[in-house]
């Protein structure tokens, strides 16, 4: 472990030197800016918005959770935490909400506004709806044209509430359905009275439109209490829900639906100012909803660091175009390089052992495993063989180059999926530890943590190939980036192998190994992400057609 760590720190230092010198040469303002950024990041994230406390629930919860994890189960993480604080990015302030929660906060706003309008809350709710829940615009218009605003919004200005509401059963001729029957009726102050059945039909259709519902014959608005009175139960909730949904559609810059199937979470990004900072640094705004789904706030795609949204977009589009060309190359089975038995990969690790001839080989390059294991992981390097010959890129060669990177990308994607399956067994393993050896649940969490780290490492590795594909291969930083890929790849493989162990006794015996390897993967992941961002920031890696 000590060996690895010193190796790691050396490399980090080297990177720092490098970036420093580059920024000094061609962009002196850049280094200044990074200093400013780190200042910004050093401000504790909690002391900002203290005035509207209802808006910062999730952020604080988040970091507390993280901290708890740190101290209880994952001692190594403390150092990584420190490293993260030096990150030059402003922390993202966002919260995960449901439509109901947004509506509740709107209701609180209504309560705050009440003294300004001195109207019943129900009426203010109508005004807010009319102005798409935009408080500032509403207040502005209100100071300009008070009474007209009320009339335009369909609120009764006469002050009388005579005739409003449901009236008891009587013999009534309804001009809508033209039936004369004994029925309940409803009307607003305007006196346009219709039978309750017609009103129900009328409202039912409109609950999903998210707009104020008015009297059938004039512009007087129905309030939520009227709707509930007519429809019974809490039907107005449905109208508020659709109104909030249309509000979200109109504010898609700061509100996004979680893209996962059937997830009803909405992410609200609070400081849109940090967005500019993020895109300037080629970092992406990754958010996690309260169901644990992580995605990129910018493009709605999965976590794609170190690639930024542009690279991701280009890469995915390219993959779609090229996939038919390449699919035949990348079949899911491979022959054992020694005995030619067909082998299907059933675990995330690239260290293959042929079940028939016991030959150990690397899944990616098909070479012997022995040189991979302890020393440098050769497979993550794309060797530019014809480097010395200055030949223009022929289409065939570009395709070959792309094929390599695409292959690496999909290898890690498939591995990630297999790791995901592996993850399903980790729960059982933790349970096994509890039942067979009597390890407490909390102590067994190092397995879950390791798996999480493994997944994060894999995702970063996967997307790093998209960045590498678009990088200038001759640049020094690209070489460092590829070295970093190799190191992370190595770390991920060895952690993945560790997680395949089935026997609970062995797992407990090698527990420190889990800690160390997971910690190492974490550090390597972070180094790769930073390096990738540098590539993008300095324009060495550029998305192009």
């Amino acid at each position, binding site marked *: 472990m000590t060996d690895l760590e010193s190796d790691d720190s050396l490399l980090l230092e080297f990177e720092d030197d490098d970036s420093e010198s580059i920024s000094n040469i061609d962009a002196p303002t850049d280094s200044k800016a990074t200093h400013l950024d780190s200042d910004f990041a050093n401000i504790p994230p909690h002391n900002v918005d203290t005035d509207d406390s209802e808006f910062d629930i999730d952020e604080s919860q988040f970091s507390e959770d993280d901290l708890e994890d740190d101290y209880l189960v994952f001692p190594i993480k403390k150092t990584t935490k420190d490293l993260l604080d030096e990150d030059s990015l402003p922390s993202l302030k966002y919260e995960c909400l449901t439509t109901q929660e947004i509506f509740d906060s709107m209701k609180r706003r209504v309560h705050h506004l009440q003294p300004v309008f001195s109207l019943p809350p129900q009426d203010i709710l109508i005004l807010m709806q009319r102005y798409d829940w935009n408080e500032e615009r509403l207040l502005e218009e209100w100071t300009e044209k008070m009474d007209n605003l009320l009339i335009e919004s369909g609120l009764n200005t006469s002050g009388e509430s005579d005739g409003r509401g449901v009236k008891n059963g009587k013999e009534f001729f309804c001009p809508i*359905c*033209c039936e004369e029957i004994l029925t309940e009726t409803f009307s607003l102050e305007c006196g*346009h009275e219709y039978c309750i059945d017609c009103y129900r039909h009328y409202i039912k259709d409109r609950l999903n439109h998210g707009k104020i519902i008015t009297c059938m014959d004039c512009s007087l608005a129905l309030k939520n209490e009227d709707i509930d009175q007519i429809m019974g139960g809490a039907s107005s909730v449905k109208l508020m829900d659709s109104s909030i949904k249309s509000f979200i559609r109109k504010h898609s810059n700061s509100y996004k639906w979680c893209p996962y199937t059937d997830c009803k979470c909405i992410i609200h990004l609070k400081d849109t100012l940090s967005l500019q900072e993020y895109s300037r640094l080629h970092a992406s705004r990754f958010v996690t909803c309260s169901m644990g789904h992580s995605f990129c706030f910018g493009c709605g795609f999965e976590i794609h660091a170190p690639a930024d949204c542009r690279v991701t977009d280009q890469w995915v589009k390219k993959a779609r175009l090229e996939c038919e060309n390449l699919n035949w190359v990348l079949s899911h089975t491979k022959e054992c390089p020694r005995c030619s038995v067909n082998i299907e990969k059933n675990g995330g690790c690239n260290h293959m052992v042929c079940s028939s001839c016991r030959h150990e080989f690397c899944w990616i390059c098909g070479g012997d495993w022995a040189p991979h294991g302890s020393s440098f992981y050769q497979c993550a390097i794309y060797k530019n063989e014809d480097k010395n010959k200055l030949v223009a890129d022929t289409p065939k060669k570009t395709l070959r180059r792309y094929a390599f990177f695409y292959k690496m990308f999909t290898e890690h994607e498939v591995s990630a999926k297999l790791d995901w399956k592996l993850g399903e067994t980790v729960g059982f393993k933790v349970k096994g530890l509890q039942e067979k050896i009597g390890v407490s649940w909390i102590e067994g969490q190092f397995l879950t943590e390791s798996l999480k780290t493994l997944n994060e490492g894999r995702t970063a590795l996967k997307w790093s190939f998209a960045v590498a594909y678009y990088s200038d291969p001759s640049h020094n930083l690209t070489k460092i980036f590829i070295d970093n890929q190799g190191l992370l790849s190595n770390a991920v493989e060895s952690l993945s192998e560790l997680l395949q162990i089935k026997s609970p006794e062995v797992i407990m015996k090698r527990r420190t190994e889990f800690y160390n390897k997971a910690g190492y993967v974490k550090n390597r992941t972070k180094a790769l992400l930073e390096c990738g961002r540098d590539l993008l920031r300095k324009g060495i890696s550029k998305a192009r057609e």
Partner: protein
Amino acid sequence: MSRAAKEYKTITKVLKEGDEVYSQLIVGMEPKEDLTRWEALIRGPSGTPYEGCNFRLHLSLPQEYPMSPPYVKFEPYAMPHANVDFRTGEICLDILTKQHWSPAWDLLHVVQAIGQLLDEPVSSSPLNVDIANILKANDMNAYYGLVHYYIKS
């Protein structure tokens, strides 16, 4: 059904006795087969290129009427108007959409609204782009000329 019957009574009454608003516009209006399909003949409003001509409207009531708006079309290939599709006779009018329709309105309201549309075409939401463009350019001669050309042929 009683709603349709009621409308039938009102419409025949209005047409027989004459009404200030409607008799100017409506030449004739009667149900086809049953009370869910109607045909109306309307007079081109004076002061418009449609003056002196009559236009046929087809109205049909959906099952959910009056909760849903009626379907209304002009006779195909007969109505050159910025908000009418010339080939199908389809009309672009907000009150005929489900979102804006109110059950308190009836067929007479609809016909009246269409008469108003003939008087005041909305060039910003065109179904007939040629005419809408001419209107936007405010070229009245071309507007009259084009409409007359279509009507006469």
